[in-house]
């Protein structure tokens, strides 16, 4: 490296482009390093951490009844005004949502609805593959939300996956925990 030298050595280095040559050597070295790319839909897929805020889901209690009591607190706190809850009263006299709709196209995944919910009924899960060609498809109703995957228990792993254009990204093998992001990064 030229910056370490002084006097005549530095001048000789300058005349023969020592700095440029060391830069070339560096990029050449990198050419034979491993890539850090994760080939997402084709080969690998990253599993989100438990704290990840993905698609919402609604939970059920032990009897299989929906936990939500239709208090509409989530609808109130939502900064995007994207939750719509219409309550009803069942035969046992408890309140439940007749209609529960979230407009995912407007949601900003702040997680405030999860924090506000007094019944632990709504939460943001691990699913992140729900892009769509039409924003109308992104309005999800009560039954859909009940069926969505919950929070990830483990996370940060990378699993083998394969793209199926008809459906989804298929995960092929069991998960590996704790992907080391720095594995292939060269640090000097």
């Amino acid at each position, binding site marked *: 490296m030229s910056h370490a030298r002084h006097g005549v050595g530095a001048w000789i280095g300058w005349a023969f482009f020592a700095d*440029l040559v060391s*830069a*070339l050597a*560096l*990029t*050449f070295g*990198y*050419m*034979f*390093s*491993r*890539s*850090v*790319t994760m*080939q997402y839909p*084709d080969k690998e897929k990253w599993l989100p951490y438990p704290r990840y805020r993905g698609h919402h889901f609604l939970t059920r209690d032990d009897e299989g009844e929906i936990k939500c009591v239709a208090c509409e607190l989530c609808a109130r706190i939502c900064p995007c005004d994207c939750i719509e809850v219409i309550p009803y009263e069942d035969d046992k006299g408890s309140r439940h949502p007749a209609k529960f709709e979230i407009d995912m196209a407007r949601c900003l995944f702040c997680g405030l609805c999860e924090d506000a919910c007094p019944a632990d009924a709504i939460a943001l899960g691990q699913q992140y593959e729900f892009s769509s060609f039409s924003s109308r498809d992104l309005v999800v109703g009560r039954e859909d939300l009940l069926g969505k995957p919950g929070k990830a228990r483990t996370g940060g792993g990378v699993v083998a996956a394969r793209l199926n254009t008809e459906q989804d990204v298929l995960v092929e093998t069991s998960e590996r925990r704790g992907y080391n992001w720095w594995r*292939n*990064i*060269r640090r000097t």
Partner: protein
Amino acid sequence: MELIVALGLIAFKVALLIAILLLLPLPLTWLERKIAGRMQQRMGPMRVGWHGLLQPVADGIKLLTKEDHIPAEADRFLFKLAPILALTPPFVVFVAIPFGETVSVLGAEITLYVSNMNVALLFVFAVIGLEVYGVIFGGWAANSKYAVLGSLRTCAQMISYEIPMGFAVIGVVMLAQSMSLLEIVRAQADVWNVVYQPVGFFVFFVAGLAEAQRIPFDLAEAEGDLGAGFHTEYSGIRFAFFMVSEYAIVLLVSVLVVILFFGGWNGMLVPLPPLLWFLLKVAFFVYLFIWFRFTFPRYRYDQLMAIGWKVLLPLSMANIIITGIAFL
């Protein structure tokens, strides 16, 4: 009869040359993107074909089917003319470039060049000089400030780097006592010119980088400050023309460096077929271009001019004088 055969042969060679030059950007873009990817610890194109091999084809189809947009305020005639003007000179230059002596096909000796001009070097420089027209017209006709600024820069750059480039080869001409590229290569049978003319090679190569508008001298399309330079407003197939011409120039500069300074098809140590030697050397210089591109930052405009006029020009002149003195 003989005349017809000779004409047919020339027509065949020209057609082959054009086909090769038109198709070569496909593997070259793939290579460039792959190398760029590797150097940046990425993978480059991976999805179309094996390791993205068909990516350039996909890109080509995309460019062909894209809307061919001409800006409303543009000078339509010049706008359409410019890509063709940019594309033609690099192709024409290759007429004068020899790729080897002869090969025997079916018992007949076939020369590996279209024409052996005795002033080939002059022809090459004259035709490369025409490249500027495509750039000026493209930038001017688009009627956009990015394009005009880009083309102004490019013109200034090309004109000022053509001078040291021209001077740098004079040493080579003095050594070979000829301006024919064939003679120049023959004169290097024992020792390559780069040994006698290291300064000439340096000047020629740096000026060639500037001429091909590659990093570190790609001021013409400095993405950061000019959009895309003189071809900002071009789209679709016309844009593809500019890209093809850019790759053809990269190839041309590599070929010229090899012919003028690295002994052309003269081998060294390992006895390989001359054509293979030639291709290997050219491939190395093309790789060097790509390697440079993903290593160096871009020079500022005033630095570019300073390097051209204050460093390369005096160096090339000194080179001529010293070569002359050595001859005396």
